[in-house]
């Protein structure tokens, strides 16, 4: 039993954090909001940022090394997605790196290499994750679920209807399309459910990162802003608000990290699972872990966003201040991929339908 990350994993996390400090500062997040030209294709800064993330190995991390990836697992990925959340990266990291790449790899599809290298942006549309597809208009490849199948479509075979998210950096579309034998990925049973759980895990990590940044922003402000002759952070009402927000985040973190481990282990043993019992236990653990992660991360998030707003006061309520860029992404992602109540029911259906005591 050793519940820690390796020095290498932490170094990669630090490297991604440094990269995003340069490639995705708040001004870049704001620019992504303002450059809302779907028909004109991807804006240069976004293309550049994605290329940097791909070059560092983040996008293709889960792809096999002979397909241009790093051949690593969700345990390696989770800290990096958390960093993308902290920086409010507008591009579809969850959809491409955590969901599309492993699906293409599992289907032994050649396109995995182009997605891993960043040459082609990929996104996914899974009904359980919500009716809208993120970054569909920017993507060169869309992996779309139809029943228990996944189909890979290029943009000229789909019709998009854009929907504006309150998070202007998130580009949502409804997608109209038709499945065919030619578009179907060759996947073994269970891959669709695994893909959904990977997305849930990754968005949970993203939420933890977002929440951490929100609390940091608010704490910074509370140290500087003075009222009644003192920094507002010296007042107990403000201290306790932020302490509570931090508490939820710090307890969400291990739940998310454990979920990463469970998903990674299930991925390694899933296909060759010796017995039905083992398969059942692995999927039970995976289902529970990813849901618990999401639930905890989201509770943290909702608190963090509101605490951060409350601490900022009126300045946080303005368009001009960067706070809302993070808050709105937080609220959007808390509802996407199944909200807290939905995931709690999913845990409940496992918990209450089976014996608990070992």
């Amino acid at each position, binding site marked *: 039993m050793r519940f820690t990350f390796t020095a290498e994993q932490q170094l990669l996390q630090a490297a991604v954090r440094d990269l995003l400090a340069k490639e995705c500062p708040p001004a870049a997040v704001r620019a992504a909001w303002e450059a809302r030209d779907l028909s004109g294709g991807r804006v240069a800064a976004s293309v550049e940022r994605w290329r940097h993330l791909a070059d560092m190995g983040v996008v293709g991390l889960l792809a096999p090394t002979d397909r241009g990836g790093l051949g690593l697992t969700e345990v390696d990925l989770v800290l990096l997605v958390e960093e993308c959340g902290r920086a409010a990266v507008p591009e579809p990291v969850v959809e491409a790196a955590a969901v599309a790449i492993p699906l293409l790899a599992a289907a032994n599809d050649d396109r995995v290499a182009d997605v891993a290298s960043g040459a082609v942006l990929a996104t996914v549309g899974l009904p359980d994750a919500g009716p809208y597809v993120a970054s569909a208009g920017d993507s060169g490849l869309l992996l779309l679920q139809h029943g228990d199948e996944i189909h890979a479509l290029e943009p000229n075979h789909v019709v998009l209807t854009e929907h504006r998210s309150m998070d202007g950096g998130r580009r949502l579309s409804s997608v109209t399309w038709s499945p065919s034998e030619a578009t179907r990925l060759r996947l073994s049973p269970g891959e669709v459910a695994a893909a959904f759980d990977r997305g849930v895990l990754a968005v949970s990590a993203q939420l933890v990162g977002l929440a951490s940044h929100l609390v940091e922003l608010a704490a910074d402000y509370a140290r500087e802003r003075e009222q009644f002759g003192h920094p507002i952070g010296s007042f107990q009402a403000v201290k306790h608000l932020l302490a*509570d927000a931090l508490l939820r985040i710090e307890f969400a973190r291990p739940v998310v990290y454990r979920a990463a481990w469970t998903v990674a282990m299930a991925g390694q043993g899933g296909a060759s699972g010796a017995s039905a019992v083992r398969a059942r236990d692995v999927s039970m653990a995976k289902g529970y872990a990813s849901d618990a992660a999401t639930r905890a991360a989201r509770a943290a998030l909702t608190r963090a966003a509101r605490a951060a707003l409350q601490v900022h006061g009126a300045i946080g309520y303005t368009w001009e201040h960067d706070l809302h860029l993070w808050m709105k992404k937080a609220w959007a992602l808390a509802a996407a991929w199944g909200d807290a109540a939905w995931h709690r029911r999913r845990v409940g259906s496992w918990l209450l339908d089976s014996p608990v005591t070992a």
Partner: protein
Amino acid sequence: MDLTYTPEEEAFRSEARAWLEAHVPPTPLASFDTAEGFEQHRAWEGELFAGRWSAVSWPLEYGGRGTDYIKWLIFEEEYWRAKAPGRVNQNGIFLLGPTIMDVGTAEQKTRFLPPMAAGADIWCQGWSEPNAGSDLAGIRSKAERSDDGGDWILNGQKTWCSRGAFADWMFGIFRTDPAAERHRGLTFILVPLDQPGITVRPIAQLDGETGFAEVFFDDVRVPTTNTVGDVNRGWQVAMATAGFERGVSLRSPARFTTTADRLVDLYRSHPDAELEDEVVQAWMDAEGYRLHTYMTVSSLLEGGTIGAEASLNKIFWSEMDVRMHETAMRLLGADAELVSNPWLDGFLFSLSGPIYAGTNEIQRNVIADRVLNLPRGS
């Protein structure tokens, strides 16, 4: 990251399980807040010690097994699974013991640790006073040097001492420099409670039993060799103890995962769709606390430290414990008020969690000041 147990850890678990199955009393002992129950629990501590299970993470020379904290967590899981008796000497073993190992003299270690592990000496904590609760720096009980310099002479009053009614020893903080301000000039002293000049007045708690005591000191003489750490540095010694207490050792996750499992069982026999969500949340919180603890302990094993973050743990477990018991009381409906309700004692006890070991309000201040680096209160 490897969240499976090693074969060695599994073997340790099996050994603990087998021993506990063979030794845990088949019927519950009387409450350790009664004279009779206290002695029953003392005997149980002796039995644990004989099997070398009373302080598994302590070094072999003091009666432990020298295990790491992961194995301590495993032992706790087995202990709660076996429904073994409460630990009457937990303040000694989990709070004072590590402090003596950290800052005590060699003589203090050999003198105090083995009888502590054996349950021969049962300890209570003497920190709070009538005018020093959350603001412990207001401590007034004083220790003055005897004329020959060999003894402390104690005068004053301690209160809310858990297990104080029957304990053998107290570890207390006394003011040794009356001119010093606040946290300075305090000293950590070990006091045998059978000394002349000591008066112990038991105080009944919410459950009607004498779980608390007030302890009065009237020219009580204690050798200065009973000083732990440096004179006038007792606050620092006490805060180190508080770090252990809040951080890892006071409330192991097994206590709460056991409660959560009982709550799920209660829900099955008393289903109520309106409360299902709370039950699931309770189970997830206990699991979250378990994971958080394993992550903290793993980090300690790799050389990490636990500081003010310990306050996060204390808030989380204490508030979770209240919520779980409140949910159980609501599931029980009209039967909740009956004294025969098996959740009642736990419910009452859970209410003390946000108060003892530093109130949760103080813990939130600690997090704000030392983790979030907010300015100190004005």
